[in-house]
């Protein structure tokens, strides 16, 4: 196979730059593998390592600083046949640290070349996440204070199944790189080299010194057996194929006639665990069975299992423009903390309005009729309260009937959950209620 180097754009690195060596190493690896330009994409980001994509006759994506791994993942998932080669410097690795960890954990079939020259060459030789503490660089004394990052160790800990630490001058690097590219999974190569323009000015670094520095560290020469597992892209497709959930484009068929002529506003004021939002949803679905328009707006604490839970349902044969409740026709008051969330709403209620009040819950005075129900004495469990109140409301046929509610339950739930919900309606019918007179 021919070289994949771009004859129109020969490498333009500084004399003595290790990146020049890396470009030719990569070309030899691709050539050895017999790859065509269209089989390969080089994804690079910012800095001198970001020049790599221009030197090759392959697909190319030159992105933002430190983000190369993110674009590469999108490309690989969309075009799984591509060999995706990512080049980043030690600068990009630092700013894109989260992406590096995620890529190691994910194990998508990408090959990452970290062109590690221990400093930010392009911006003036500042310290990077791999600059040795004792080096003299352009960030004053800052690198003395921080421990450099062992790329291979971090990759290993984060789950990368193929990790190499090598000098760019190593003779068999093209073969090793070809092995990394052929490996089906995430392969990381931490390639050490020198930046003659910046780093090496004050920190002489010969190929020999690089070799001996690497020899002192834990060796990484390829497969990390403890991290071997399924490649992400093929595994994703396999799991996705098992997933059969689709979108419901059909909706709720109209099987009842509308029960009200005008907009109705129903508010449930309760607590987490009373299934207030589920109750509001059932009310909505019941109304839709009669072809009416519905909105439902919820309000609950960030603590999912504790605190107030409020749902506002609007039912109307006409289109609903404004989705907030102003003058409720019905308030279902199931708990103190729920009531306190919307205390002012009771004052807005008019004669003809109804409050379904759980016994023992304090509410402000209101012009609405108050129906008090002792759910506790009636044996209605906490999680059944919203539905029990809803079935009392449905008894009046406004804004939905019991028949509509039962149908909504049958369409929303299945099996045991459906039986339980239908059981609540039966049980709730037995619980006595009385009209409570409020003293003003």
């Amino acid at each position, binding site marked *: 196979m021919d070289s994949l180097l771009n004859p129109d*754009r020969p490498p333009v690195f500084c004399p003595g730059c290790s990146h020049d060596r890396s470009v030719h190493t990569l070309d030899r690896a691709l050539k050895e593998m017999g790859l065509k*330009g*269209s089989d390969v*994409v080089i994804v690079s980001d910012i800095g001198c390592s970001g020049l790599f*994509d*221009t030197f090759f006759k*392959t*697909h*190319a*994506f*030159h*992105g*933002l600083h430190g*983000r190369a791994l*993110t*674009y*590469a*993942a*999108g*490309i*690989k*998932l*969309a*075009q799984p*046949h*591509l060999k995706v080669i990512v080049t980043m410097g030690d600068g990009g690795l630092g700013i894109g640290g*989260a*992406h590096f960890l*995620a890529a190691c954990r994910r194990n998508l079939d990408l090959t990452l070349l970290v062109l590690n020259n221990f400093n930010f060459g392009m911006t003036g030789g500042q310290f990077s996440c791999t600059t040795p503490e004792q080096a003299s660089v352009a960030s004053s004394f800052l690198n003395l204070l921080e421990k450099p990052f062992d790329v291979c160790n971090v990759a290993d800990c984060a789950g990368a199944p193929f990790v190499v630490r090598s000098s760019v001058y190593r003779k068999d690097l093209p073969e090793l790189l070809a092995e990394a590219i052929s490996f089906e999974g995430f392969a990381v190569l931490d390639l050490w080299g020198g930046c003659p323009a910046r780093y090496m000015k004050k920190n002489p670094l010969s190929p020999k010194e690089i070799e001996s520095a690497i020899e002192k560290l834990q060796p990484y020469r390829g497969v990390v057996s403890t991290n071997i597992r399924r490649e992400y892209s093929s595994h*994703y497709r396999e799991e*996705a194929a098992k*997933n*059969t*959930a*689709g*979108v*419901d*484009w*059909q*909706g*709720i*068929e*109209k099987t009842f006639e509308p029960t009200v002529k005008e907009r109705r506003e129903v508010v449930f004021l309760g607590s987490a665990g009373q299934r207030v939002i589920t109750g509001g*949803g059932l009310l*909505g679905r019941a109304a*839709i069975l009669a*072809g009416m*328009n*519905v*909105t*439902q*707006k*919820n309000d609950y604490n*960030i603590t999912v299992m504790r605190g107030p839970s409020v749902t506002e349902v609007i039912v109307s044969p006409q289109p*609903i*423009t*404004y*989705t*907030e409740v*102003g003058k409720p026709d019905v308030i279902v008051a199931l708990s103190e903390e729920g009531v306190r969330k919307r205390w002012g709403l009771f004052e807005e209620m008019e004669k003809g309005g109804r409050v379904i009040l759980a016994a023992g819950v304090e509410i402000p005075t209101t012009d609405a009729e108050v129906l008090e129900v002792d759910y506790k004495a009636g044996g209605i469990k906490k999680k059944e309260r919203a539905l029990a109140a809803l079935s009392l409301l449905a008894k009046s046929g406004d804004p939905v009937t019991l028949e509509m509610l039962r149908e909504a339950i049958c369409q929303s739930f299945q099996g045991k959950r459906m039986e339980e919900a239908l059981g609540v309606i039966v049980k709730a019918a037995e619980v006595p209620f009385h009209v409570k007179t409020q003293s003003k």
Partner: protein
Amino acid sequence: MGLLFVDGNQAVAMGSLYAGCRFFASYPITPASNLLSAMLETLPSAGGIALQGEDEIASIGYCLGASMAGMKVMTATSGPGLSLYSENISFAIAGEIPIVIVNIMRQGPSTGSATRGADGDVQFMRWGCSGGLPVIVLAPADVSDCFTLTVHAFNLAEQFRCPVIIASNKEIGMTSGTLDMERVEKPAVIDRTLHESGPFLPFQVKPGEDVPSFLPIGGPILVRQTSSTHGPDGYITTNPSEIQAGVERLQRKIDSNTESFSYFDLEEREGARTLLVAYGITAGAARAAATELFENQNIPVSLLVLKTLWPVPEQVLQAAAVGMERILVAEMNLGQYVQEIRRVLCNQRVDFYGKMSGQLISPTEIIEEVTHG
């Protein structure tokens, strides 16, 4: 077939599937999290890919990669995540990468009242990235719009090769409503124009056109994408006239076509002296207020609901404002879009009503502003 009971975010998910979206990535954030859930539930089984990124920067990065590899892509977030998207949005504009970005607006950073609705990012969406080049921003007012405008957003992203932002709001995204699939507007789906024959340069436009034709990374013909300022060949350029021609084209391809995607509803009433202007969630209250004023108080007020916010539909505004003594703009913030309306209608009286307490602007408040303003 009957009515669907879905929230705005679910309707966006449905619109995206209808439009051919096959790649989605986002990072969880209230009030956009349930859009991530909806996409995870539906996209893989439709043969697509849905991912939860390690952060927002990664999420949009995954999308940009997949888009250049030929897929229709979408991401979703709220204001704090949009901040993190900023640099990649600038890249998508300059690199002409089609992407739909859903911004479910809320009040601000962190938690608490931050997760209540507001239209706090209206100027931020336009000016929140470096370079200042135009972006397209569409604002749905209800679940039906969430479906329809999402299809439009994909069509525009593909047609103009650019990011398109859907400016939703917690109050739309997380409030359920009825969606009638038989009656909802379903725009015809448009795909990006593919390069057909002859030598391919990734950013070359045909004479008289402003949008380069596309080939995916991964096909038989080599494709270059770059975040550097580039010429038609996709290689870095420092040639001032090439740079200037490039940015002018990026501006022109959006701005000169604004009229073709200026979506709006205009309710004109005879004898109206006031034009009410609203968008997003506030449009519903404004509609209720205009109806109430006309039917019960005999005060005719015209109503303009804007569904394209950026580029500013200047001609739509000017036409609707003809003969009006007063323009009243209501929005769920402290006065953002009103600045554009004052700029466009600089010879007319433009008043503002807004708040960002987490509560919706009510029809009563708007009526009060109309009658006593």
